[in-house]
């Protein structure tokens, strides 16, 4: 207890030096915590934004192959799939059933490419909540040929709500088709993915694509949270597999780029009729996870590099401290302090320094994260995909934070260990007669 008190007082003795060393430790902890926090939220935010754009976390895509080998995306047996979803016990927030096509919009000599999703607005109640209109609104979608486009597309075409634009796309069988859309609303730019998307009524899209009124191409299940995406994906895969032909997920699982390999399976296989492909958001974002993992690894390397530098400073400082207090060490040894107690005194000082620096660093990190999180980014910001509601968010894992603090404490103790051991090994007579 006395050693702890003495260690704390010794730290308070050279306030400026303690503050500087503590600040160096705090800086290291702060940087790493912010990076960890960013990496933690990075995957979640991208997944969340992607889930919003793709309208789901778990998906079923129907792929039909004709006798001639022509491949097209279509789901005809909705009841079969809905039964599979029910059997898989998936707690869906809502289910989207969309038809979509890559289309060209043409207006007054201007042309813009975008992906148009056919949406059943009466069922997809979540999408209207997410769309932020600058002009027009959902009212216009009451017209069967209404379309909602983003601001960059509207600017390129120079259109306003109420304008009628030509649309050019390929039908399911690959024929060129032309139709007309009426601009119902213009939304704010929702980033790189959002700006390339438009939303039309599914019944009209199905007409343009030559699909039946109840057909669609992609079934998306929107889960209450990202948690369980893989498990529910697997459960749904098993249920669909039990009642219909599916693309084999296991065949592609060893491929480094799973989703590319999985999506291309149809090209090499021969079948007729409809085969289903069950996949998840995590399959699509596996590379995003790799980026996050790389960020985490990078943060650990940064922590280690920073601390190797800080350790040199700590070792040198403790060598100076040893020299400064050499007579004091001699005195304490003379009056009965054992070697181990002298070593522990220095190690306690280092430990308190590390702990104080770490706490200070964590406080700083949370201040920095709160400050960055308070900045409102424009919706057309290139970083939109990693934002949540226009704000950068951070998710700090408590276990990772604790690990960082433990690493820092261990490295600080290691840096102070050799000077502490030297202090303990000092011959008291030598220490007492040393003249500074």
């Amino acid at each position, binding site marked *: *207890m*006395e050693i702890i008190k*003495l260690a704390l*007082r*010794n730290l*308070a*003795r050279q306030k400026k030096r303690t503050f500087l060393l503590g600040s160096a430790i705090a800086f290291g902890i702060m940087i790493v915590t912010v990076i960890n926090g960013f990496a933690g939220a990075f995957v979640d935010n991208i997944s969340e934004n992607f889930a919003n754009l793709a309208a789901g976390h778990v998906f079923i895509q129907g792929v039909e192959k004709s006798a001639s080998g022509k491949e097209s995306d279509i789901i005809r047996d909705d009841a079969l799939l809905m039964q599979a979803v029910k059997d898989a016990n998936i707690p869906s927030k809502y289910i989207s059933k969309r038809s979509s096509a890559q289309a060209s919009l043409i207006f007054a000599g201007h042309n813009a490419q975008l992906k148009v999703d056919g949406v059943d607005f009466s069922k997809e109640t979540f999408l209207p909540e997410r769309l932020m209109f600058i002009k027009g609104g959902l009212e216009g979608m009451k017209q069967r040929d209404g379309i909602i486009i983003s601001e960059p597309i509207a600017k390129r075409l120079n259109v306003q709500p109420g304008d009628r634009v030509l649309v050019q796309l390929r039908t399911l069988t690959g024929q060129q088709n032309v139709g007309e859309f009426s601009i119902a609303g213009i939304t704010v730019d929702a980033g790189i993915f959002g700006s390339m998307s438009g939303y039309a009524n599914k019944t009209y899209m199905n007409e343009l694509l030559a699909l039946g009124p109840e057909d669609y191409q992609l079934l998306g299940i929107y889960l209450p949270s990202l948690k369980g995406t893989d498990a529910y994906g697997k459960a749904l895969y098993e249920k669909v597999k039990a009642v219909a032909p599916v693309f084999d997920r296991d065949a592609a699982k060893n491929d480094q780029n799973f989703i590319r390999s999985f999506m291309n399976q149809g090209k090499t296989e021969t079948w007729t009729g409809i085969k289903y492909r069950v996949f998840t958001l995590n399959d699509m974002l596996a590379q995003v996870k790799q980026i996050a993992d790389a960020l985490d690894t990078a943060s650990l390397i940064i922590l280690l590099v920073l601390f190797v530098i800080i350790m040199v400073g700590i070792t040198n400082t403790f060598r100076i401290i040893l020299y400064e207090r050499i*007579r*004091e060490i*001699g*005195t*304490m*040894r*003379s*009056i*009965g*302090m*054992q*070697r181990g*107690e002298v070593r522990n005194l220095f190690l306690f000082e280092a430990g308190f320094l590390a702990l104080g620096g770490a706490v200070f660093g964590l406080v700083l990190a949370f201040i920095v994260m709160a400050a960055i999180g308070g900045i409102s980014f424009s919706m057309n910001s290139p970083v939109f995909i990693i934002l949540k509601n226009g704000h950068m968010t951070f998710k700090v894992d408590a276990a990772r934070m604790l690990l960082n603090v433990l690493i820092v404490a261990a490295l600080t103790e290691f840096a102070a260990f050799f000077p502490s051991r030297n202090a303990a090994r000092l*011959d*008291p*007579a030598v220490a*007492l*007669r040393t003249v500074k």
Partner: protein
Amino acid sequence: MTIVELQDVRKVYPLGKVEVEAVKGVSFCIEKGDFVSIAGPSGSGKTTILNMIGCVDRPTKGTVSIAGTPTKDLKDAALTTLRHETLGFIFQSFNLIPVLNVRENIEFPLLLGRERVPKKEREQWIDYLIEEVGLSQWSKHKSNELSGGQRQRVAIARALVTKPEIVLADEPTANLDSHTGEQILELMKKINREMQTTFIFSTHDAKIVGLADHIIRLRDGLIIENVRNGTDAAALCADLAGESVIENSPVQSARS
């Protein structure tokens, strides 16, 4: 009763490539409860002998026994325990711990070691010592807020707090003015009488040597005089170790 015994003690220090013999074979004994002065000019080996008695330094040759325990083969931990339990130290430069106040400095040795004195008993004893050294009003002050004399009083109280059998004081008055120095010695003498603690102090000041019961004079690492209460103190060791030791002792050599 002999409490300190040195037999043919030599101490050689390496100084660069040469070796310096600071103590050249010294033998003497000190009786319990004595007020002992080790006197001599600078470089005569006073501090080296005190360090060896204090178990902070080991002799190159010869043996040192403290309270009947030969220190030669004791390991560092045992020597530290011996220092803690049997010896008290007063230094020329006071050597107080700067981050602790008067009371904490005095209490510090009691918080070391394996045995703990109960808090109430500890506090009463520290209060008594503070009172005894006349620092009641200064107990919460740090050492940098005290005069030299006050600091040395703290050092005396600290040396006494573990109730040691022997207190070693290396030139305790050297950094003090003559008046304060006298006060400090008077205090040491008073405690010596009251507590029957053996005091061994080194000094090069001829005036204060006279206060001692037992005077050991050194020159160039050899004893030139060993007198206790006016008589030759060499016989003290003769009783213990036999004539052969005394015959070979540097006292004899120096006299002959």
